[in-house]
């Protein structure tokens, strides 16, 4: 592999990613347990809510490789990337590659749907999402159904995401998991250095995200 270590993922992006993984795994487990555990499932959902808000904000105001504008590409580039997918040649893409970029969007949309429907959901026992009372039982039941179907969608997306990472590792020799820990990718050629933004933005965005969650779950 190449000699160039390029910093692509800043701390907020990495922290977001791994906190999200933990929260999603915990949400899955606590939902399977059900009953009293749903209380903590809901807390975990609020955490995911905040994380998604933060990531969307960071996609507009964050460091260069985190921005949507830098990784959301049109169909031509996506198809070109798809064409290279099965060769052993590394993609050697600095940020999210054009296919991965759309996966990021798909995952964020699915997570947002999951959070939104969860707020109104009920378990037919003694747990209700914080906004349940605003819609009543019938609508809540329907949204709970969407919550369950969309969980499957989310798991399929996450499964494809993980398989793609494994594929990059085995077929193309690219260590994407390591990059998500260290923030750096090894690339054959030099790439645009990461354009960082002031650390204050992290705190402001995190505070705003938390505040939005707090307001909405208490409506």
């Amino acid at each position, binding site marked *: 592999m190449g000699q160039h270590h390029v910093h692509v993922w800043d701390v907020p992006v990495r922290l977001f990613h791994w906190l999200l993984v933990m929260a999603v795994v915990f949400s899955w487990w606590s939902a399977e347990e059900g009953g*009293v555990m749903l209380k903590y499932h809901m807390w975990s959902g609020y955490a995911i809510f905040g994380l998604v808000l933060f990531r969307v904000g960071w996609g507009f105001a964050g460091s260069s490789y985190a921005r949507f504008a830098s990784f959301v590409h049109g169909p031509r580039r996506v198809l070109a990337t798809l064409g290279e997918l099965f060769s052993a040649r590394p993609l050697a893409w600095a940020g999210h590659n054009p296919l991965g970029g759309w996966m990021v969007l798909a995952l964020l949309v699915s997570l947002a749907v999951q959070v939104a429907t969860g707020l109104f959901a009920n378990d037919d026992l003694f747990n209700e999402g914080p906004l349940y009372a605003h819609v009543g039982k019938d609508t809540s039941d329907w949204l709970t159904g969407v919550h369950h179907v969309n969980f499957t969608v989310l798991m399929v997306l996450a499964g494809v995401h993980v398989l793609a990472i494994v594929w990059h590792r085995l077929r193309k020799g690219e260590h994407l998991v390591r990059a998500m820990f260290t923030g750096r990718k090894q690339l054959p050629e030099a790439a645009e250095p990461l354009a960082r933004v002031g650390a204050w933005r992290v705190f402001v965005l995190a505070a705003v995200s938390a505040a939005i969650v707090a307001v909405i779950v208490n409506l």
Partner: protein
Amino acid sequence: MKRALITLLGAGALVGGVAVVADPKPDDAVEYRQGIMMALGWNVGPMGAMVKGDVPFDAGQFAFHAGRVAVLAPMALEGFPKSSAAAESHALPALWENYADFEDRMKKLEASSAKLAEVAKSGDEGAMKSQFGETVKVCKGCHDEYQEEH
């Protein structure tokens, strides 16, 4: 003594159900069982709120609702006669296809809620909360298997 009485009542309800309501109209069966489920939920809700800490724990209230659940739980199965399989409800076809398993689960619910009522008499908060968790697991298991996604 009380437990024996509850069991007896439960058995009586079951036998009585079979004998008296020999051929219930399918739609009546659906309404009956939805009523029982509603009444169960009516009692499970306040216990759940206490266990989650949403409202202060009150052993007397908890025991009251646990007693109600122990009486109601054995009344549920008779609301699912096979003759009501085709009636419109939230019951999945799997329920009628695996009826023996469904009956097993109902028996488990009966035993588990009787135990909850028993434990509730002790006033031991920890034991009550933990048995409550066990009982609602039986509820959830059956809902997951046999209740339609709305």
